[in-house]
Structures are given as C-alpha cells and as structure tokens.
C-alpha cells in the first residue's frame, strides 16, 4: 500500500515533467511542419528595367505588319513555289492556281485565229480574181463589146471583196487580242509577292482549294529581319503613355531573354482587348491602347513572329509617391 502511494506520488511528478518536455517537442515538430515563408519564385521574374514603368503584354509581328496573301479567284492550287523562311523579291512567283479552263479557251481561240487567217487568204484570192476580171473588162477598148451595166457590177464586186478582206483582217486582230486577254487571265492566276520579304507561313499545298475569303491566309509574308512588338496597355494606364518612351521586352516563358525596343508609334484608336494571355474565350470587358515598338532580330536566341512578350515602358507614375 505504501509502495503504491509512493509510486503514484513520484510517478505523477515524473509524468508531469515528461508532459512539459513532450509539449515542447510537439511545438517543435509543429514548427517544422509549417510551410516555408514566402520567398522568391523558383525562376526569378524579370527585374524591372525602370523604377517607374507601365507593364503591358505584347505580341511579336513582322515589321510593317504581316501581309496575308489572298487569291483573285477561288480555285485549286496547282503549284507552290516557295517554302517557309524563303526570302522573296517583289514579283517573285509564290504559287499558281489551276488554269486549265483558260488554257482550253486559249487553244480554241488559237484555232479561231487560224480560221481567220485562212479567211483572209480566201478573201484575198477572191479579191484578186475579181480584180483580174475587172481588169480584163476595162482592157477592152470597144465600148460596144462590154455593157456599161456589166462593168459597173464588176467594179462593185471588187469593192465588196475589199471590204470583206478588211473585215476578215479585223476578225484576226480580234482573235489576237482575245488571246492576249486569256494570257493575262492565266497570268493573274499566278500569285506573286507584292513586295520584298520572307515567307512566314504557308497554308496551301498543291491540290488544295484556295478560297477568296479563307480562315487562314494562303501565305503570310512579312519582313522578319526587323520585328515589331504590338503592346496592349490597359486603358487605365493609357494616360501615362507618351510618344517616344523607351521600353524593354521580355520573352514570355523565359524572362532572362530581354531586348531593348525602339518606339515607332501609338495606334490612335483604342480597341477592345483580344486576349493574348491564355484566356479560353475572348473577353471584351476592357479596352486597350496599342503601342508599336520595333526591334532588330537577335541571332541568339532566335525570336519568332507571334511570340508573346512582356513589355515594360518607362513612364512616370500618375500619382506622385509621397
């Protein structure tokens, strides 16, 4: 009995001390279990190039904008003569549309031309025959031997034959001009570069149908040596933007790639924002001011037309910070 009460006495004291130790251990494990405090992101975001800047999202375009090449007539593509990345000069052939129907017209017009040529020969022979008959009559000196009526008829026949020859010649000219017209129409189905540039995108292949108002342009042409950035600025920050403000671009996806931008112009019309940054549908609840900047294309790392860019434009704060 005495032993039991002693055990309880010292046991309870020991357990109490152990309880104190245990609770300290608990608070230590608890501290270890806490999430680490806020630090820098795993990939450090771009350092701001200017202490006071307006941020915007932009997209890379070819300088002087991309040209979406269209077709004059919808039709089958027979041949594509350029590849993506080809550098093309003005008037270089890009692709050809099927023109066999016009070739067929050309052939039949050529046949017509031959007929018209033959017609001329016939008319010439006819004229020569009539002229010689008239000459024989006029050669007869005795006026009683040839009636006046006969002579006049012959003269009239010669005039008619001359007119017929002129008409046949005009027909030949007409068919020649018709051939020229068909050649022009055929020429029109060969699509040429409207200016110097390089091929950014080819959306047609031989055998495909090219429509006059397609979803994607048949070929996208642009000057990829010099690029431009179209930066969207929230209308709330539009008041901070002025002509000629310097800017820096950061490639989205790798903030380490930066490049200086040269101001070109501010688009005078504020447009509804078309979402560039990952939205699943287009939202038009805000309007954006677009500013165009140019940059020379760096060789390494390569930049591509259509890439997204984070842009920082140096602009003073609207409200003075105290």
């Amino acid at each position: 009995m005495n032993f039991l009460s002693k055990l309880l006495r010292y046991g309870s004291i020991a357990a109490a001390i152990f309880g104190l130790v245990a609770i300290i251990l608990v608070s230590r494990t608890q501290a270890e279990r806490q999430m680490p405090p806020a630090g820098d992101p795993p990939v450090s975001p771009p350092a701001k190039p200017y202490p006071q800047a307006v941020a915007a999202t932009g997209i890379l375009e070819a300088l002087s904008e991309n040209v979406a090449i269209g077709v004059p007539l919808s039709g089958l593509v027979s041949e594509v003569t350029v590849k993506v990345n080809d550098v093309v000069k003005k008037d270089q052939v890009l692709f050809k549309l099927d023109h066999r129907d016009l070739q067929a017209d050309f052939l039949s017009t050529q046949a017509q031309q031959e007929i018209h040529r033959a017609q001329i020969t016939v008319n010439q022979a006819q004229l020569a025959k009539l002229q010689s008959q008239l000459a024989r009559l006029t050669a007869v000196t005795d006026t009683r031997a040839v009636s006046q009526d006969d002579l006049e008829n012959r003269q009239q026949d010669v005039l008619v034959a001359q007119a017929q020859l002129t008409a046949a010649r005009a027909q030949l000219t007409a068919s020649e001009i018709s051939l020229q017209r068909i050649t022009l129409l055929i020429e029109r189905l060969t699509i040429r570069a409207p200016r110097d540039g390089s091929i950014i995108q080819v959306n047609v292949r031989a055998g495909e149908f090219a429509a006059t108002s397609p979803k994607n342009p048949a070929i996208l042409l642009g000057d990829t040596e010099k690029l431009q950035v179209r930066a969207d600025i929230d209308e709330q920050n539009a008041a901070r933007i002025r002509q000629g403000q310097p800017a820096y671009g950061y490639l989205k996806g790798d903030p380490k790639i930066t490049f200086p931008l040269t101001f070109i112009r501010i688009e005078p019309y504020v447009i509804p924002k078309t979402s560039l940054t990952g939205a699943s549908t287009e939202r038009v609840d805000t309007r954006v001011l677009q500013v165009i900047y140019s940059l020379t294309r760096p060789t390494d790392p390569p930049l591509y037309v259509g890439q997204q860019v984070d842009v920082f434009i140096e602009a003073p704060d609207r409200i003075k910070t105290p």
Partner: protein
Amino acid sequence: MSRVAPLLDLVTLWPLPSTFLSYMIGLALKMLFGDTAKYLMLVAGLFFATFLIVQQASVFCGLMRWTTATLKNVAAPIYVVEERVDQVNETNPMRDTDVARIRSISAVRWAMPLYSGIQRVRLGDGSFKTVQLIGIDAASLAGAPGRMIEGNLEDLRLPNTVVIDELATERLSSNPKDPSTKIKIGDQFEINDVEARVVGICQAMRSFTGGPYIWTTYERALSYTPSSRKMLSAVIAAPIAGMTPDQAAAQIERETGLRAYVNQDFGANPRDIATPKGNKYGDFNTSTVWWYVKNTGIPISFGTTVVIGFIVGIAIACQTFYAFVLDNLKHLGALKAMGMSNFRLSIMLIVQAVTVGLIGFGLGLLATAGFANGAIANGQPPFYMPWQIPVAAFFAIQLICMLAALMGIIRLSLYEPAMVFRA
C-alpha cells in the same frame, strides 16, 4: 494522532528559522501526499481542466489556420484581390489586364497571376472528389509549392501536367486504405473531363474544405475550369528591395483601387483600420480568420468547451481542496494552537495548491501532447498550438488553484485553535 508526531519535531526545531521554510514545505507536501486518494482527485480535476483548455483551444486554432491554408501553400508576400474580398477562400475574379496594372506600380518588384478555385476530379472508377486547384504563372512558377517530395517542379511546363500534395496521393487513389494504389508520378486523372498527368508530389497544408491541393499553370487551370467572363482570382506580388510589403500594399491600393493584403501571419497589422461596416485588416490571414469567426459558429462551440473546462476545473479543484483542508483541519489547528501564524499556515496551503496545479498541468500537457502527435502524424483533426495557449492555460490553472487555496485559507483563519482540544 500519529500524524501529529512530525509536527512536534518541527516545534522542537522552532528556533532555527533558516531551515524552517524547508521544513514547512516538507510538512505541507507530506500532508498533501499523505492521502493518495484525495491527491489523485485534486490532480485529476486539474488534469482534465488543462487538457480541455489546451486541446480544445489548439484544435480551434488549427481549424482557423486551415482556413488560411491557401495563403501558406501559395507563399507570396502580397495578395492583390478585388476591392470587396475579405477572405482567401471566396474571391471575386478580376480582369486579366489587372496583372499589368499591378506590375506598372513602382513599388512592385514582380506580380504574377493566380487562379484558385474548387474543382471536381473524376477518378478511374468514375467517382468524384473535390480538389483545390491552384494555377500559377508558367514562366516564373511564382506561387509554386514550397516543399517538393518527389518529381520536378519544372515539369509543370509540359502539356497537361499537375503537381499534387501528399493528401491527394491517398484521396484520389482507387482504394485509400491500400497504400499500393496511391497516386504516383505518371498517373493520370481527369479534372472537369480534361486529362491531368501527375509530375510531382509536394507537401502542403490541408485546406478547410478538406480537398487536396493541386498545382498547375495559370493557362491550364483556366482550361480545366468552366469558362466565365473573368477568371483571375488574385495577383501575387512582391515589394521592391528596401520597401516592406505593407508599404507596397498601401501603394497598390492607392493607385489601383484594388485590395492589397500582406501575407504574414495572424496578428495586428499597421494597416488595420476600423470602419463603420467593420474592421478592415491589412493581413490576409487575419482578415480570413476574422471572417470565419464572425460568419460561422466555430468559435462559439470551441469557446464553450474551453469555458466549461475552466469551470469544471474550478469546481472539482475547489471542492476537493476544501474537503482536503477540512480533513486536515485538526492538524492545522494544532499547529495554530502551537503558535504558528495564519500567514505561515496560508503559505503551506498555497504551496500545496501550487504543487497540485503544476502536476495536474503537466499531466494535462502530456495528454495533449499525445493527442497532438496523433493529429500531426495523421493530418487530422486540425491541431495548431501557439505558445500563448499553454502559457495562458498555466495561468488559468494556477488561478483555479489560488481560488481553491483561498477558500481553505478563509476556512482556516476562522478556525479557533481551542477547537482541537475540544473533541
């Protein structure tokens, strides 16, 4: 009268005041431990009081901390949300261009979009589980989980990939009781009918709703989520060097009109202000916790338990201690008759009360620690014990003991020494 014998020893030692105190304490403890049953009763009352107060208060704190789990898992110094947002689990989406507006503020070093929302996952067997989906910026991975257990965070940039937390490995498996069916790296499931492939497993705090956390990139989070007009839940940001998050948050609020919270911890913040509509807090944790305190019955239910623990402690301790004093009244009366002052007798009673309080408190902590170890290992139920809880409980228990001692002292001081000899 055998128990009075040591008292006579004490009286013989009377002229030696230096050892007197230790004798007096020894005597008090001898009296206390003399009756094992009463001693155990006293300790048990205080043990239950301690356990109830500390354990319930800690579970309450743990539950409140769960409400801020997103803030702990997506650690960022500043959260910018829509103007009227009070708590992190209920955000009002903003426009996509607001990220650029926040980036345009000179006090902000970086700002990144964040998607946070509850979505449904469909498992292989066709059952559904809700998850907390987090979408972070793909380039910088700002807001990524702080502790990866397995896998590579950078793989999140691959198509249709997600990083899940430890809870999800069990919760999303076909049979949560069988460890071999746990979700591993490379496993797939569907979020709103879109494929998701696991490339990493991380450690994360549990959410209030109980759903596991799943990280993916912001763009992909939007494709997993049914489309709506605005999708940006929050913008996370950091202040420039040389500026505190509070200063930067103040500047963001001034220039954009959005609500900027700092993400430190529950507590007072210099930007806390009282408005007629209620307090506005500068810290998102504080604001979220207060929202739950005001809008749910959680604090009432836990508060009641803590108060009951305190009352039960007082009732048991006072009653038992009073009975104990009554029991030993004859001995104490004898001491009084021998000329010991009321003050010295009171010290003896206080020594006894404090001793019982300390032991009861220690035993209560031991039980709480046992509960806590289980809760922390299991992740369930919530448990978070800030240092203030045991300290406050210590003083509460000591207060109970002092009350009990006071009752004994009052009874003793009314006792006439002559009564000892009367029976």
